[in-house]
């Protein structure tokens, strides 16, 4: 979903910012739309190895032979051994809540954790450790991507965005428009 950050132009119609709204556009919309699923801030540090997890929505891929890393959007990273290309094997899942991208250098894995940049020690792939959290380096996207329509505005005090669900919205104040 976040592979292509392709929804670009998000116009947020706040009640008081009526001047920005189109003339005939009502300021609040009701109907089917999207609602953020929050990951509470205290769960962002729940970083750990897990057994094999289902692949739901892939993202960034990274090959560091013999290991292959594949992002699971907002959840973590699947790690495989591809030394035998005919029989790749699942090694472990790195649980990193709210992750949307990462890179690797040496035995360090760098990933986003909502607004923070995380550094993980992956020397032992089966026992990863958080080394540092560099706060407020990243600007997450605060609207549903690849989507045209109304959505419930993001309330960051409730946590990081872990996904979006389709629901009926009463008087939603945000919409994407591209």
């Amino acid at each position, binding site marked *: 979903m976040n592979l292509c950050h392709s929804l670009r132009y998000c116009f947020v119609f706040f009640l008081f910012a009526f001047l920005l709204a189109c003339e005939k556009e009502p300021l609040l919309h009701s109907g089917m739309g999207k609602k953020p699923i929050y990951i509470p801030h205290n769960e962002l540090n729940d970083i750990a190895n897990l057994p094999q997890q289902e*692949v739901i929505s*892939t993202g*960034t891929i990274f090959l560091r032979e013999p290991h292959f890393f594949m992002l699971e959007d907002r959840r973590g990273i699947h790690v495989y051994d591809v030394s035998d*290309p005919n029989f790749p094997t699942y090694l472990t899942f790195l649980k990193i809540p709210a992750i949307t991208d990462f890179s690797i250098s040496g035995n360090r894995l*760098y990933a986003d954790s909502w607004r923070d*940049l995380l550094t993980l020690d992956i020397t032992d792939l089966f026992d990863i450790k958080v080394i540092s959290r560099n706060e407020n380096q990243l600007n997450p996207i605060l609207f549903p991507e690849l989507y045209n329509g109304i959505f419930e505005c993001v309330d960051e005090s409730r946590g990081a965005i872990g996904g979006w669900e389709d629901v009926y919205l009463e008087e939603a104040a945000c919409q994407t428009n591209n």
Partner: protein
Amino acid sequence: MRNALLVILLILIFSACSKDQNMSLDNNGQSGSITRFVVHNDYMYVLNLNEVKTFSLSDPDNPQLVNVLTTDFGLETIIIYDETIFIGSTNALYILGIDQPDSPVLLSKSDRGEILLEGCDPVVVKDHFAYSTIKIINNICGIINAVSALVVYDIEDKLNPVFISQYPMNQPNGLGYKGNYLLVCDGGNHLVEVFDISNPHKVVLTDYSFGVSDPVDIIIKGEQAIISSKKEFRLYDISDIENIRPLGVIGK
């Protein structure tokens, strides 16, 4: 004077051997073509929607922010080729110089179109040519027009890249190349399209394209390709480009 120096520098850069290096490759590994993070030597470059942030990794345990370059909104993908940063955004190709790796400078920005265009635009670079897939969804008066293509730029002059050709596609995603063959994931056709790019001015679709369900991104390493889909990845033997063979698969 500054420009003259820059030109001399560019000539020096171009006179270096061209590498057949694919995407973001360093000693540590290789990413696909769709990512917002890239590590190069002792620096990491990270995209926000309208910023390129440079982190020093001189202490790899604690990346330090050393530079912020502000751009227009819409940054999507970043790769490094030949000591140069290439960024795909929704409506432009950015080229950044990193002769001073702690402070990237904008060399050029090739605008593609109007503000209503939307894309998803990974880039790969080979020699003096950049290949980018674009997905354009044009919403005019509520009528949605999707125009997607593989576009080719001549980047010999990094200060002034020239758009040279484009090839229509369905819903292109990630891409990579092996020699003179460019492999492009097309999620609309459920194909990985194989183009002959021996003449970048006239890319030719070959008969070697092969079916992959919902392909997203690709890493090419030697004689093998790893291709990710929404819900799985698969390895391919690409030693004989005319006869690409599936190897192992993991996923659903």
